[in-house]
Each structure stands twice: as structure tokens, then as C-alpha cells.
């Protein structure tokens, strides 16, 4: 599987995953949404990281789970894209 490196595509799919799995009805999830406010707690974050492995072919290391990378959906997407570029042979 070729790792996904486009942060825009990653953002869209992350938002869709959050809406379908964690956020209650009516909760808005867009690229600027803080993860905590759209229902991503520690349990959901692990689900999100496993989704990244399945959907984007990217394994995000624990050391990348910093406060700034988890500030919003877009920040996490950017981090995933960077990890994908770094893992490119």
C-alpha cells in the first residue's frame, strides 16, 4: 500500500471517521476542530491511529503524539502526512 501523503485528503477522511464513530449527532467536525471537542479521547485516538494504518498505510509513532500535533484534525493530518513522507524509501 502506498502511504497517503496529501494532508487535505487525510483531513477529509479523518473528519469522516470521527463523524461516523465518535461525534454525537449535530457535532461539527472540520479541519480546525480541536480533537477533544469532537469526541476524540484516548480510546478514540487509538482507534484513529489504527484507522490511519488501515486507510493511509501510515504507522504513527507514539513520540509524534505531542500536544501540538493533537491540537486539531488538520494538525494531526499534517503530522500523518509528514510521517508518510519520512517512511518513503
Amino acid at each position, binding site marked *: 500500500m502506498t502511504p497517503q501523503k496529501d494532508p487535505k485528503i487525510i483531513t477529509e477522511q479523518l473528519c469522516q471517521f470521527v463523524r461516523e464513530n465518535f*461525534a*454525537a449527532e449535530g*457535532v461539527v467536525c472540520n479541519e480546525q476542530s480541536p480533537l477533544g471537542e469532537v469526541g*476524540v479521547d*484516548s480510546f478514540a485516538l487509538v*482507534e484513529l491511529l*489504527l484507522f490511519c494504518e488501515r486507510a493511509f498505510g501510515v504507522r504513527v509513532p507514539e513520540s509524534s*503524539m505531542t500536544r501540538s500535533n493533537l491540537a486539531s484534525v488538520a494538525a494531526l493530518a499534517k503530522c500523518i502526512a509528514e510521517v508518510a513522507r519520512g517512511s518513503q524509501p
Partner: protein
Amino acid sequence: MPNLPRQIRLAAGDYFMHGQDRRMRRLGLPGNVCRVSLSLDPGLNVPLLRERIQQSPILDWMAHARVVRTFPLLPPRWRIVEDSSPVLHEHHLPSGAGAGVGGLPPVVAQRDLHPGQGPAIAVDLVHYPDESRQLVLTWSHTLMDARGAEFVLRHLNPVGAKPGPTAENLVNPTQLKRSLAERWRRLKMARSSLKWLRESGREPLFTLMPALQPGGRCSSHLRLMPFTQEETAAIDARSQSFNAGFQRSHFYLAAALRGLHAVAALRGNRDGAYLVPVPHDMRRRGGNGPIFSNQLSILFYRIEPRLAGSLSQIVAELNRQMMDQIRAQFPDSCMAALDLFKPLPLDYYVRHLGQPSGGKFASLCFSDSGETCQGMADFVGGPIQRVTHLVPTWRPPGLTVLFWRYGQQLSSLLSWVDDCLSPSEADLLERGLRAGLLEEAIS
């Protein structure tokens, strides 16, 4: 107002909690009853609170719900009964009275609720001479979990522009009806959890319980550990440095396990692993409800004693095990398995649950309720000074560690059964927990 159900099946988590309730009462302990207390400065609009409670369809429904089993070997159900079920109880304390747990009079601190025999929920309002008050919501754990109780508080006291939960949010629709296809899917899913449970519960396991069953009645003890805002900020910073910034619960649990490990070492434990079931709220976030029922699943952590001396190793191991269990969809399959066993008679069900761990069940129970009453500065006009959770201790394992936050302050509660932990061991555990959270260097 929606048409609320007259009968509804118990969720898997409800029957599990009901089993714990039975087990505790057999040992002379209080039932599986939880409390959350709001300490309020003067200003509470008492008539308005009375009116909201009297007119609440949620509280009315919950106060009339009883657990019944219509026929042997059929799953138990909640049924609405017609008897009168008062919910609000008011108490006026003269100065200096009621110096029980958290300053509550015994009638409130020890209020017993039996979901088969009477209301499974009660609200107590304690008036003090200086016009400060404590509002105490007490509920049977068979009825709902702590998040459900939080929704009840928000229903009575909506915060900001957001509408509070209403009767529409009371019940999870999947609890009302589940399709045949869905039941079949869950049946298949249930099988995979058994392997996990057997694997994590294998001997040797460390337990605080004495080898012999208690001859007389047991009693439970509580110790509150409030942290200041400065301490809470320091704990947050330390959780980041232990690579648990987004998983602070793992840092808290690691500190609790370090404390327990010190107690176990004094008892000569060398090989016994620490088994910890951790509940997880399965509701969707950012919205209201479902309020009623235990919407929980469980993750099981097993920490070997060779790792339990180091906070960073415990945190890393917890992170790894959490990832593995979610990858294997253990939380879903575990609840599916609990669902499957609901037709079993309660005593047999309780014994059956303990089988994978040879009856030990766990080394300690741990829960992190997270942010409680978020954004709620006052309750019906009374400024909130403090929020306190009081939870029962299950035996086994005989020890519960609970964390929660209100505003910028973290609090913890140690709760234990007298024949499982001595007062000096409780002191050692508390010191170890504090040291883990605040002082100990990264190892």
C-alpha cells in the same frame, strides 16, 4: 414529551453491576451505590430546584424503574412500577453536626438503594447554618454509570446556550430493539473475548484478598485526595514527560500501580501480576445522552511485577496493551459476551465472571471519570465550590482508585475493604500514589 418505555432489557453492563451489588451485600458491604456531591456556596434557588426535580420526566421514570426477572432463565428487565417514589430529600444540619464522609450526615452518606425493591436514584439536599449546601445525587450502579449521572445534573442545570439533556436522550435506541442480524453478529463476536480473558487472567495474579472468606461482616473505607491547582498543573506536565499527554489516565493508573506494587512487595509478592479492568464510556461525544444504563465497555490490563517498579515502563505497557485490545475489538466482544450470559441466574453469573482469573477478578479497580461538570460554575444559582465522587469498593478486588477533575483541580479517591488493606498499607499506597504523580524522577 416522548413515550418512555414501560419495560426495557438490562444492558450487559447493568447486569454486571447488579451482580456486583449482590456480591457486596452478601459480605455485609453497602450495595453497589455511587454518589456525586456538589458543595455549594450560598445562592442556590431551592424552590426552583424542587420544581425542576418534581417536573423532571427523567427522574420520575428512573425513580419508578425496578429490576425484575419475569421468568427464570429469561434476561432480567427494568419495569416501571406505580408506587410513590420520592426523589428529593432535604436535611437541615445544626452547626457541627454531620461530620461524616465529606461532611455528610450518615443518612445521606450511607443511603442505600436497591434497584429490585425501591427507587434506584435519590437527590439529597443538605442545608448548613451558614446557608452553604451540599447537593448529593445517589444512584444504584445498576441504573446508570457516572456519565449518566452527569447528564442528570446537566438536565437539572443546563449550562450556557447548550440545551440540557431531555427525556428524548434517556434511552439508547439499540437497547430498545436489536435486529436478528445484529444479535447474530454479537454472538459470533462474543467468542473472541473469552480467549483474551483467559490469557490476561492466568496465574500467578496478585490479590489483596485474604485466603479465607471473612467470618463476619466487612466494612469499607474512603480516603479523599484533592490536589491543588498547582499540583494538578505539575501532574499534567509530568504526564507529558512520561509520554502520556493524551492518555493521562494511563499516567494516573501507573502511579496507582506503583503504590500497589509497594504494598505487594511488603507482602512478599514476587511473581503475581497486577490485573486491572478499566471501564470505558462508549457514548458518542459532544452531545446529550443516553442517560440511562451503563454504556460501558472494559479494557483489561495485565502488568507483570518486573515492570511495576517503573512509571515509564508501566505507561508504555498500558499504551501497548490498549492498542492491542482495540485492534482486536476486545471492548465490543467483551460486552457481547456479558450480554450473552445475562439469562444466567445472578449467583451463577457472578461465579462465572470470576472463572478466567480463578475468582480473583482483579488486583484493583481503576476509573478516571475525566472532567466532571465541565463549564458548570454554579448549580441552580449556587456557586459550585467542589465536586466529590464517592464510589463503592467491590470485593474482589477490595480496592478501588478513582480520579476526576473539576475545573483546574484533579481529585482522587481511595476506597478499600478493611480485610484487604490495613490502615498502614493504605498510608503506603497513598504516599506511593502521590510520589508517582508528583515527585518521582523518570526512570
